[in-house]
């Protein structure tokens, strides 16, 4: 089990190999379908309300109760394939989701030296426990689909696609 803590950078991600178990610590951003659409629009019109450099994006739409996150497992990453290369080009260093990615994402990961992590889909309550605190970063009107910053402690992920393009999905 490897431990990676914020501030995150690409150099330590380069040592990771597909299949490695990793614990993440520190601030990560969230974003799923609706946020990605706006992020890509923001990239193209120069009006992105936050920075993407050295960020890890977790594909999730959490459940909240009494101001706390109760469940936040990964959503299907494939739906973000249309947007992900633009985010990697703009400085995002890793994504967390579930399931296989398209060839365009593999290519972008290798080109940019990024990593795609997976978490276990359907284990939302477990991942909720790893979130210490959170705040809205952008697009609050999207509710669960807004971009949040999560402060995570020992957030468990598996390297699904490493920076060389090796994948646990291609045995």
């Amino acid at each position, binding site marked *: 089990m490897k431990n990676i803590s914020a501030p995150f950078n690409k150099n330590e991600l380069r040592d990771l190999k597909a299949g490695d178990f990793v614990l993440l610590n520190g601030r990560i951003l969230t974003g799923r379908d609706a946020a990605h659409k706006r992020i890509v629009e923001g990239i193209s019109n120069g009006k992105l309300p936050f920075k993407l450099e050295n960020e890890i994006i977790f594909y999730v739409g959490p*459940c909240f109760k*009494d101001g706390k996150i109760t469940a936040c497992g990964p959503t299907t990453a494939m739906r973000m394939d249309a947007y992900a290369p633009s985010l990697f080009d703009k400085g995002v260093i890793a994504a967390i989701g579930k399931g296989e990615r398209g060839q365009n994402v593999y290519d972008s990961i290798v080109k940019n030296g990024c990593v795609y992590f997976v978490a276990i889909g359907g284990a*939302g*309550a477990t991942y909720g426990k790893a979130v210490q605190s959170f705040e809205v970063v952008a697009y609050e009107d999207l*509710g669960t689909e807004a971009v949040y910053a999560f402060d995570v402690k020992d957030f468990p992920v598996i390297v699904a696609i490493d920076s060389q393009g090796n994948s646990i999905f291609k045995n």
Partner: protein
Amino acid sequence: MSKIYFEDVVKSVENLVHACSSLTPSCERAISDACKNEVNQNAKFALETIISNNNLAKAEDLPICQDTGMAVFFVEYGQEVNFVGGDFEDALNEGVRRGYKKYGYRASVLDPLTRVNTKDNTPSVVHTRIVKGDSIKISFMAKGFGSENMSKLYMLTPSQGINGVKAAIIDAVKSAGSNPCPPIVVGVGIGGTAEKAMELAKQELLRPVGFPSNDLELANLEKELLVDINALNIGAQGFGGNNTALAVHIGKYPTHISALPVAVNIQCHAVRVAECKVEGRQ
């Protein structure tokens, strides 16, 4: 005539939606069995995580998955029931509204084109049959869309026969791959019209996981397909291994002389269904 009141249905539904905070007992057993026989280490880790997550959710009353689904109802409405106090579907939706808010479940429902969220997870999808009797049976399913997005409809021709049916089901599972959160339950509807086949496929997902069809021929087909699907090596979460599916549930309905519809509706490993019977007051 018996009377059933709006508020009785609302309260029943409010309780039913709490299904989102635990796996059904049959699902729990199926996953536990899968975990015991899993040989792929990553897949075994995934299954162990799913089991411990369910235990955590039950112990602390948390949603097992953040995708608490779109609420789908299958209703058997007794024709002797006099429904009092409002519109029946409004009562179902009010129950969803209150239950999802009470338990902190996610509001995932929005306009398909404007993408503006209704913020209370309504409306639900309701399938109603009018049946004999003076009570209302309500079956609830919280249907996540990682799996729902993998649904397929094959309008086969009669010449394709049973081999075409099997090939279609395998094709649906293969093309879904790692996306629907395997190990999955494969709901299949054979026959009817296009929409009848899809409805049947979904309805089959209400059956306790792994309980065979009452129809012997279908039960054998379910068994055979489960073996074939688990040989695909997609595995839990797409990590490989011998547990791509927990069960195959097949239903059939008469169809037209020109047709052989096959619908596949996939359920992720987080089976969250519940049912209740609302009795009338005299």
